[in-house]
């Protein structure tokens, strides 16, 4: 379902409704809003060595140079040099950089959205230390302003901005949560006026992985922590982040922030959803305009904290040899490398790491909203082959992750490749391993 254009604002009409000149103007003004000292320094620093290509799974899988990460921001590098760099007048005079064209932007939609998971692996390889992923995120903002966010991301972002849900549903998600609680025999704390911890939930879990929702409720009940979901700020995902709509991202985050403040939460607990964590932990305060009056923690780091403080004990999990898929947004980019491993160690899991793991893990291929972009599927499958091989090479029977988008991507791969492994939720494993009386029983 697409949101009514009138409700989105004329300047954000989808690309097909806008002239080429309007698209370029939108992209350039969006980009100009983004360029500060730091991003200009990053653009200035590139020495065209091309090494970032060797970190990117899209390039590794295809050997196609267009997938070189820094090339994905080329129109904006070009615009910066031509329009606002220190020697811009000279560059224009000598014709060293051409004007960015509408056709060029159309072409770059594929590079900035379909073939980039915003996973940040390229930022680890640059000898100049450039955070290429940060530039790509800014370029997505500019593409959004040009009306060039892919329709799947645009529509979900628009719907989420307007309704709080990225997609229409037959009944409100709050009702679905209650139904999940009844189905799994666990009480879902909802709309409590006060709570120490505010919970939110990936729409993916509500629709595809309800056991993960129940697991979260069970674990929190076991810990005896006062917590609540809030009907008016329920969805963890932020499609504004994926689509590049910064203002929409702000409004989507704001729902959660307002609800956390309303219930006096000391902690906003982000579930197993990588980009939701990135959006709330590392971007929300900037968009909100002031520091958040509560902590933002991802569920694995919260639970690892409980273990370290002696408030949570776990029994051995029945998992056998296990490997772990590190979600890029929470591990590589978000700094939660140890927490999942602390939990697995506490459950006595026999962890078999992939060749590239932890901060250097390859993305599942679905991050950055790519799993939602239909036309990107063939390329996504191609890039996933290496990942699936790495998982198989571990010899592990069990395959665990802590991101619902990773799960969805691997489930899709399972069907596409007739692959034998099914990803499990680390949170669900924890919930199945709860031991002792808990703090309330």
């Amino acid at each position, binding site marked *: 379902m697409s949101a009514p254009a009138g409700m989105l604002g004329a300047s954000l009409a989808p690309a097909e409704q806008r002239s080429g000149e309007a698209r370029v103007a939108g992209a350039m003004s969006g980009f100009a809003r983004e360029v500060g000292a730091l991003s200009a320094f990053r653009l*200035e620093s590139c020495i065209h060595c091309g090494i970032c290509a060797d970190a990117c799974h899209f390039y590794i899988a295809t*050997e196609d140079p*267009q997938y070189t990460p820094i090339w994905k921001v080329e129109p904006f590098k070009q615009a910066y040099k031509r329009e606002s760099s*220190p020697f811009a007048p000279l560059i224009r005079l000598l014709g*060293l950089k051409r004007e960015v064209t509408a056709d060029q932007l159309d072409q770059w939609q594929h590079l900035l959205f379909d073939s980039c998971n915003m996973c940040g692996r390229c930022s680890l390889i640059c000898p100049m230390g*450039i955070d290429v992923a940060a530039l790509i995120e800014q370029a997505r903002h500019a593409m959004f302003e040009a009306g060039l966010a892919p329709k799947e991301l645009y529509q979900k972002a628009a719907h989420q901005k307007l309704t709080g849900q990225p997609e229409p549903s037959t009944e409100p998600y709050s009702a679905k949560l209650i139904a999940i609680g009844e189905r799994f025999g666990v009480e879902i704390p909802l709309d409590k006026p006060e709570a120490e911890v505010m919970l939110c939930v990936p729409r993916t879990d509500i629709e595809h992985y309800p056991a993960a929702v129940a697991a979260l409720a069970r674990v929190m009940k076991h810990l005896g922590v006062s917590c609540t979901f809030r009907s008016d700020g329920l969805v963890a995902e932020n499609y504004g982040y994926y689509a590049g709509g910064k203002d929409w991202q702000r409004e989507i985050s704001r729902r959660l922030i307002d609800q956390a403040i309303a219930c006096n939460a000391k902690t906003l607990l982000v579930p197993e959803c990588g980009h939701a964590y990135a959006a709330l932990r590392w971007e929300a305060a900037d968009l909100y305009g002031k520091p958040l009056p509560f902590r933002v923690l991802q569920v694995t780091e919260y639970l690892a904290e409980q273990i370290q403080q002696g408030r949570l004990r776990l029994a051995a999990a029945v998992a056998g040899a296990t490997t772990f898929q590190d979600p890029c947004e929470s591990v590589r980019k*978000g700094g939660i490398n140890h927490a999942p491993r602390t939990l697995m160690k506490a459950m006595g899991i026999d962890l078999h790491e992939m060749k590239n793991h932890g901060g250097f893990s390859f993305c599942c291929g679905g991050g950055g909203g790519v799993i939602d972009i239909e036309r990107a599927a063939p390329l996504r499958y191609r890039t996933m082959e290496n990942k699936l091989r790495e998982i198989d090479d571990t010899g592990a029977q069990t395959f665990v992750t802590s991101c619902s988008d990773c799960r969805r991507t691997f489930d899709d791969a399972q069907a596409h490749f007739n692959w034998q492994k099914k990803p499990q939720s680390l949170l669900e494993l924890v919930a199945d391993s709860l031991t002792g009386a808990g703090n309330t029983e």
Partner: protein
Amino acid sequence: MDLLGFARGPALKAALAIFCLGVAWRIAGFALLRIRRDLNKPRASPARFLTEGLIAVGTRSWPHPEFIGRTGAGEALGYSYHLGLFALVLLFGPHIAFFGSLIGIRWPGLPSSLITVISVLTLALFLAVLFRRVTNPVMRMLSNFDDYFSWFITMLVLGTGLAATAHIGAPYQTLLALHILSFDALLVWFPFGKLMHAFYIFPSRAINGALLARKGATS
């Protein structure tokens, strides 16, 4: 005034002036843009992430083990010719004398025979770097006028220097004048192109390393 006098006199002074003003303008041009304050609570203390930033200056000098297989050879090539250039610029007797006249400090250099060997090796590496740039599809796609002109002008300085020390092709005074003139040209071009990475590389690594460490992210 003969050509050599012009090259080491007014031309050098003008080139140095353009170099200094140009570098200052180029850096000020972006450094004076707005700096957004990050309002998200850091994972690490300021002392920790500043330290991590400084560490990144060193650690980014060589690829992480996960990347070496794909990038080790290319990076080794890059660093090799840079090392060759540094040795030639900083450890060749006449260059030491030149810098000494500017800053009043001198230091021991390398024997001329060794400098000649390094010059030839560096020249070969320079050609290899160009070959790689035009044959590697990624580098070829990314390359523009700046990349080739910066290579050319650096090569010109290197080539004329080698010719002057080996007395090849013209009288020594003429070759020396051409060498210094090409160096003057390099100074003029420096602020406008990618040679500026000499000023950027360490701050860039440090700043981005610190920002990633602020989040506890992999760096």
